[in-house]
């Protein structure tokens, strides 16, 4: 090195880098989808309302129902093991593998709270009947463990009220159910 410091990165590289970083961020900010891989860290910019020291939030419930209609809550981690527990909500949103729609919507909007200015339909991966049968066998093996049985798997998102100071929780509204028959 003789006097002049070496140039680390060229102008073209810098512009390319800027585009590779900013474009995925813009996609995440103004649409309902997110590119991957991209240099995007978790945002999680959601809010809950706190009224009178009480929070209202959603909670995913998975349960096995036997022939007599008795409901038995299932431990989410055990139900989908070895799939990580944090994927359960996404699996539920996608119909637990039993959704038959062949398209999905991408919302495009002007800012975070309004991503519905434009709706784009794109193809969705639809599982085959054989894949669904495999999923039923997979779920049945997890529901019918340690002598317990269930003829149906039920998943729903309930609305809960939680007292922040005590943690006391009560269900205020049961959500619509996804029912999987486990013959």
């Amino acid at each position, binding site marked *: 090195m003789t006097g002049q*410091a070496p140039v680390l990165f060229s102008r073209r590289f810098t512009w390319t880098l800027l585009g590779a970083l900013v474009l995925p961020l813009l996609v995440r900010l103004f649409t309902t989808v997110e590119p991957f891989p991209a240099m995007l860290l978790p945002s999680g910019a959601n809010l809950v309302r706190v009224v009178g020291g009480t929070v209202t939030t959603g909670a995913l419930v998975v349960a096995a129902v036997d022939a007599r209609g008795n409901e038995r809550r299932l431990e989410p981690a055990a139900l989908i093991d070895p799939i990580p527990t944090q994927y359960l909500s996404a699996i539920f949103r996608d119909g637990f593998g039993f959704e038959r729609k062949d398209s999905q919507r991408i919302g495009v909007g002007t800012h975070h709270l309004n991503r519905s200015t434009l709706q784009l339909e794109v193809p969705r991966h639809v599982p085959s009947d054989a894949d669904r049968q495999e999923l039923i066998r997979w779920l049945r093996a997890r529901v019918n463990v340690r002598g317990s049985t269930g003829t149906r798997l039920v998943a729903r998102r309930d609305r809960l009220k939680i007292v922040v100071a005590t943690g006391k929780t009560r269900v205020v509204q049961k959500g619509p159910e996804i029912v999987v028959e486990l013959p």
Partner: protein
Amino acid sequence: MSSSPDTIFERFWARVARNSATTSAALGVFRWLYCLNLLLLDASSYSWLDDAPRALYAPPVLSLAYLFPSFPPAPFFKVLDTVGVLALCFTMVGYRTRIATVALLAVEIVGTNFKYCFGKIDHNGVEFALLLCMAVADWGRCHSADARFRPGAAAGANPLAAARGMSLLAVLLAFGMVTAGIEKAYVWIDFDLRTSGFLAWYYGVRITQGRALLLSDWVQHAPLPLLELGDYLAPLFECSGFVALLTSARAFRIWLATSALFHLSNVLFLNIPFNSQTFAYMAFVDYDTLLEKLRASRLGRGRWQLAVASVLVGLAGIWHIAARWTGNSSGTLLATDAATWYTVRIVAAVPIAVLAATALVLSSLRAGAAAATGTVQAP
């Protein structure tokens, strides 16, 4: 540096390089530490995807996996894990380090593309960025098998490569944190005590995922104004990385140390670990003092350490590979099932964050002293 750069870009990169500078020798130490973290806690673990139900395949629209109709047939992911573990072992001992690092990065990109096909993206961009930038920085130049057995092309300090890799990593880290903070700043800073962003995260993890470890129970005793203050400080801090990076080497390391403490609070109260991301910040630790002490010690003068370390790394690698082919795998050496792996990661996140924060604060003091005496390194 006798002449000043004459364009905005050159001035930007010159300043970033000055404030993120480290040496090839220090990167050699960091390589061992970071790979040790991966080997113990976060090794490639995708083999379980071979047994995942195909009906759950719901890839993100803008991902490589969207181009595929389903998960690849078994034993694709066991083979992928095997390649990943081997690449990790070679990277750690520093054998063909650049190639091994790129192979590890490729495995992680392919594996995570399919892992996120359950409909959720986990955002481990920092781990990708770290491997990419360390390949650019050529972190196998020192304290490696390459340095010992392949003298010449692959050995010895390479200040320009180190400066490029570290500058790129610094920019990616600062930008990554902006992406985490910008949307939160827009939504969370609402001057309304009847809403809480922190509690949205808290109950999301606690209720749906059933985690309530460490200090999680303490949150219910926190006054709402304190949580609201957290809603404002978190995104503002996340958006401040470039200010610190462009200010000074000391400021940037203090910002990284604060990031480590931020992750510590996340794991303590929210039970969300960011282990490998926190470890990535330790690339900016000044390891020269540690190296000097090592050289002065008996440990640093022996010729057997590399051989012993390589054997231990090899044994750990064999354990990982055997576990994946027998269906008992997780990312850590310390557990073979997903639930225990989470607990291990959450508990391990505490000492990792404390170690990173402490090492970065000490490094910031050295960086400040170096700046005061005019001994800041230039590429």
